[in-house]
């Protein structure tokens, strides 16, 4: 599409002054054409670039490269996760246990208690803003917990960089900073958070959703899927509640198909929210088949689940690593911050090294939680720009299991959300 003939015309710094250049294109023009040429050049002659332009571009290019790579990494992780999850479908016994793609993102909330904003420039935000809603993204947020048991070094090095303190104000600072056509939603653009939780079906599965509305006066682009995290639990241990991205073949069959969800997120652009438009994140709670374990019941299976998914785990880690390592934890940090604040988060108060990630892992703490039947878990959704969360949802009877979440989807109309998803079941 390009040709070299064009090069010399505007090859040099003088390209900004088209009028001074000779060019093949202007020879033999009629008087009228020459007049038009002159008028056009005069019409824009005094237009001067925004001096910040180069800086914005310079910052955005590496981020865009990372997003492009991340999309590929996410696709690879998704393919791997599907490859692993599909065989599991043939064996109903393991459906609820291996949880397929869910396991690598276990404890996405608690694993990411470290928040290292600012330690590595703009890169940590890449993971948060990367447009792929698939396992690549969740691998980023969840990977510290997945591999932590077997290979503590990456997780530890990641978490060492930041103290446990939260600095949520830093996250929204990237909003709109990447030079795209519609600015990223900042946290203050989003509000009217709401949640809806349906009643449990025969298998104890509970479906619900969060909705968030662009309450600002301008259109903005959602920079990422945001987080759904367990911020509290009564009668159980938050470590027993895993949060995973909904993927094809996982047990949360009542959720919208993940393919459709990701399709709304046009490549690299994020979900576009007009003023008063909202988006919705569906979630589905799938209890472990072993119920509320006393100790050994569900442990082997969840351990096996992580073992199975050692493959996707590192892929997800790589996805975060290409956003400069700490990106993984920074991406999930918005979720972690309210979690630490609201519950006093036992892991967060521990040392900022691999300790926090190891502690809530089911393999590491086989017997922390009592098996109280009347357990509830509280979920919180934090939109992509970061803390604070917009809404919480309580899952009654949730003791041990997996929360599958979808990518954000546009609400059909800026009117009040309906309960259609809550009524559906798997």
């Amino acid at each position: 599409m390009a040709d070299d003939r064009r090069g010399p015309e505007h090859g040099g710094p003088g390209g900004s002054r088209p009028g001074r250049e000779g060019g093949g294109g202007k020879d033999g023009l009629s008087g009228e054409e020459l007049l038009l040429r002159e008028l056009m050049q005069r019409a824009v002659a005094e237009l001067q670039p925004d001096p910040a332009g180069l800086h914005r571009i310079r910052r955005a290019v590496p981020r865009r490269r990372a997003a492009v790579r991340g999309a590929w990494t996410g696709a690879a992780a998704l393919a791997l996760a599907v490859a692993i999850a599909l065989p599991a479908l043939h064996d109903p016994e393991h459906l609820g246990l291996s949880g397929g793609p869910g396991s690598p993102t276990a404890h996405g909330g608690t694993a990411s208690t470290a928040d290292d904003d600012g330690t590595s420039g703009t890169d940590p935000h890449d993971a948060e803003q990367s447009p792929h809603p698939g396992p690549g993204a969740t691998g980023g947020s969840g990977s510290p917990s997945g591999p932590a048991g077997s290979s503590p070094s990456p997780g530890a090095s990641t978490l060492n960089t930041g103290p446990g303190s939260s600095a949520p104000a830093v996250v929204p600072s990237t909003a709109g900073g990447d030079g795209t056509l519609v600015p990223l939603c900042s946290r203050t653009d989003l509000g009217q958070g709401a949640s809806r939780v349906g009643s449990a079906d025969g298998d104890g599965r509970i479906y619900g959703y969060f909705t968030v509305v662009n309450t600002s006066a301008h259109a903005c682009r959602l920079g990422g899927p945001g987080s759904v995290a367990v911020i509290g639990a009564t009668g159980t241990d938050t470590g027993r509640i895993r949060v995973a991205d909904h993927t094809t073949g996982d047990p949360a069959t009542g959720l919208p198909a993940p393919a459709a969800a990701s399709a709304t997120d046009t490549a690299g652009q994020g979900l576009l929210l007009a003023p008063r438009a909202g988006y919705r994140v569906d979630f589905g709670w799938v209890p472990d088949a072993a119920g509320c374990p006393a100790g050994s019941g569900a442990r082997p299976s969840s351990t096996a689940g992580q073992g199975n998914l050692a493959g996707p785990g590192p892929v997800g880690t790589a996805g975060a690593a290409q956003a400069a390592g700490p990106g993984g934890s920074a991406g999930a940090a918005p979720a972690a911050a309210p979690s630490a604040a609201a519950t006093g988060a036992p892991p967060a108060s521990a040392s900022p090294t691999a300790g926090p990630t190891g502690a809530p892992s089911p393999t590491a703490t086989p017997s922390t939680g009592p098996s109280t039947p009347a357990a509830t878990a509280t979920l919180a959704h934090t939109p992509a720009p970061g803390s604070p969360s917009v809404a919480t949802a309580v899952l009654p009877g949730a003791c041990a299991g997996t929360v599958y979440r979808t990518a954000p989807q546009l609400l059909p109309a800026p009117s009040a959300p309906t309960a259609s998803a809550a009524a559906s079941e798997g």
Partner: protein
Amino acid sequence: MTAVAPGPADSGAGTSAGTSEDLLTETYQAHYRSLLRLAALLLDDLSTCEDVVQEAFIRVHAARRRVREPEKTLAYLRQTVVNLSRSTLRRRILGLRLLPKPMPDMASAEEGAYDALERDQLKAALRGLQRRQREVLVLRYFVDMTEAQVAETLGISLGSVKAYGSRGLAALRVQMEAGHG
């Protein structure tokens, strides 16, 4: 071909993409302004022009394959600006981008009122053209492309370029004369 010296510009980004960053700076200094003016003729508000040109730089430079062909970089940039301007216009028609900032008044002190009038009239007239006509005229006369180059950039045939060009000129003539009358 990318053998450029370490750039004097800030190296704050600190990425591994050292050489292409320097190339970015060079390309920016060489072409940003003319591309911004190109966008300004295709669009009508300044903030969108900046967005479009910056996005074009980001896209072209994020694709290393393209950056490795510096002699084609400008062509890629122009083509991306044209395409983005088109999709931005389309999006604005759909009403998703709200309240575009108006182009600031760029009339300078020494410029006569008639010149400003004529200039605004041209912009209004350009806006009144069909999109393809406007693109052909701007590339042909502002960028000084040959008709063949315009055809290549827009991905249309040479005959179409000629047709859009002559009809665009005629339409422009009518609009400008109507404006004077």
